[in-house]
């Protein structure tokens, strides 16, 4: 059982992370990430991270830095202009896995207005698993795994931070 204080702190982190992603504030979002980050959208619900199965997205810290650098060039057509987004997070379950580490499971529904091209509203429902640790008095995320409900179906362009 985690304390109320821990729960509030973890939830505040999730909400801030969501807001920065929603608002395409790439570098501020990246500041929440620790050095051993794994940012992952698997193709299958039961996929293992190190399997030979292809992923929709599979970034270690280096590749994530490249992704942020590309978004920050200002000429990434896929996010020019950036999608307008809002995501709702619910069913937050927090498990304390070490003195200062947490696994956080949640349900997320992201609404995306694709204003770069087709001007449609796209909906991205997912199960999300964060791994957080407290470092220098602040929470950092070192893993974010996004299990899209439709990952094995047809998936539209996904060039924002999910």
């Amino acid at each position, binding site marked *: 059982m985690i304390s109320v204080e821990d729960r509030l702190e973890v939830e505040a982190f999730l909400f801030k992370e969501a807001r920065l992603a929603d608002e395409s504030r790439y570098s501020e979002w990246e500041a929440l990430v620790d050095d051993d980050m794994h940012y992952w959208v698997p193709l299958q619900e039961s996929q293992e991270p190190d399997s030979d199965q292809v992923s929709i*997205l599979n970034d270690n810290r280096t590749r994530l830095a490249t992704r942020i650098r590309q978004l920050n*060039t200002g*000429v990434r*057509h896929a996010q020019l202009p950036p999608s307008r987004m809002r995501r709702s997070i619910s069913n937050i379950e927090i498990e304390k896995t070490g003195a200062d580490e947490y696994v956080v499971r949640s349900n997320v529904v992201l609404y995306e207005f694709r204003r770069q091209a087709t001007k449609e509203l796209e909906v991205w429902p997912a199960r999300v698993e964060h791994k957080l640790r407290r470092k220098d008095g602040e929470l950092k995320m070192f893993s974010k795994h996004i299990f899209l409900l439709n990952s094995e179906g047809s998936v539209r*362009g996904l*060039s924002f931070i999910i």
Partner: protein
Amino acid sequence: MMNQTDTSKFPRYDKLITDARVHSSLYTDEKVFEDELNKIFRMGWVFICHDSEIPNAGDFVRRNVGREPVFAIRSRDGEISVIVNRCAHRGNIICQEDKGNTKALVCQYHGWAYDTKGALVDVPYPGGFKGDFSCHGLERLPLVDSYQGFVFASFNENAPPLLNHLGRATELIDRAVEMSPVGRIRLSGGWVRHQLNCNWKMLPENDTDGYHVNFVHPSFAQAIRSNYDEAVLDDEEGLKSLAKDWGNGHTELFFSPSYTRPLEWFGCAEDRHPAYTKALLAAYGEEKGGRILRDGPPHAVIFPNLFLGEMNIVRFEPVAPGVCLHVHTPMYLEGVEDDVNKRILRQSEGALGPTAFLLADDCVIAERAQNALQGKGRWLDLSRGAEREVVADDGVISSHLTDETPNRGFWRHYRSVMHPGAPTSGVSAVA
């Protein structure tokens, strides 16, 4: 009379396509789309799967051929059948899983059972069934053939042999599989289905368009140092890569002339994978093995729906005039160390699919084009570089990387398929 009736029903492709331009209605018109599903995806050869996806008896994978749901399945005798995924009784889906293994195919609706070649073998409550089992099998595609393990099929029993359709482009497939020291690839990594809201023809066109790279992918060029800097991002005088038309609608961006050292195409130092280098040289000899190590894999489209995307294999799927899928899997090599295939996988995730450093931008550009082509439409120019093309002895046309040689080759073949008998120019079909 039949011919006159037939052509009057359809758009005048001979008027809508010339070597210098194509009309935008070819991307938006429902009638054109339906006509393509018939003339290209039913009457011609279509890539289905690679035999490494179904290595064992009873293995199957689901696919779509145009709008037709099918599955490919291997029987105990090793033969691969491509079968329409529809029960002969009341038309239900027979094979619901995307892939798997089975001894028999049993319809979930009334329990009709078929063997792995689609023959009807059992009907529940047989007292009421007065039909002939041999007349109630599943619909098999009459032509199934393969080249280097790439399985193609056609609904048209009178289609010319697969090798006629592939023509000179067998060389492109050879170059893909020869990236393996044992000459075999393995498509076991799963397929990502990326939906683009654009016409399917924009996929083969864009995948072998060498002109757009500097404009669609500047963010990639700025963020990442890669082999593409030399291959596609140099200025007009500096570019050594070539655009090629192989005939029969098969097209290529030929990057190899840009590469000066082994494994440059793989984005790594030449001593990064010593076991792989040694195995290729041992398998093919110093000269050919050295050439493979320097030249790298093909970047080529096999008409109409297969893209040999360097170390990826891609299928194009038309869904509607303004919707298509770009479906990719890493092209794993047999006979290599795991670290080679691991690099192939990571590069595949970087280059292709919804989140990719490259394709996500192509996707938005294509969707904008589809939007712009609505309404009355207009002519699209295809003429770039026509005056500086070079035709080799084998008929393959080469030009500057930024020239529209591949797109002209695509459309020339498209026109000959959609409007048989229309006069053609340029590279001829292979006899």
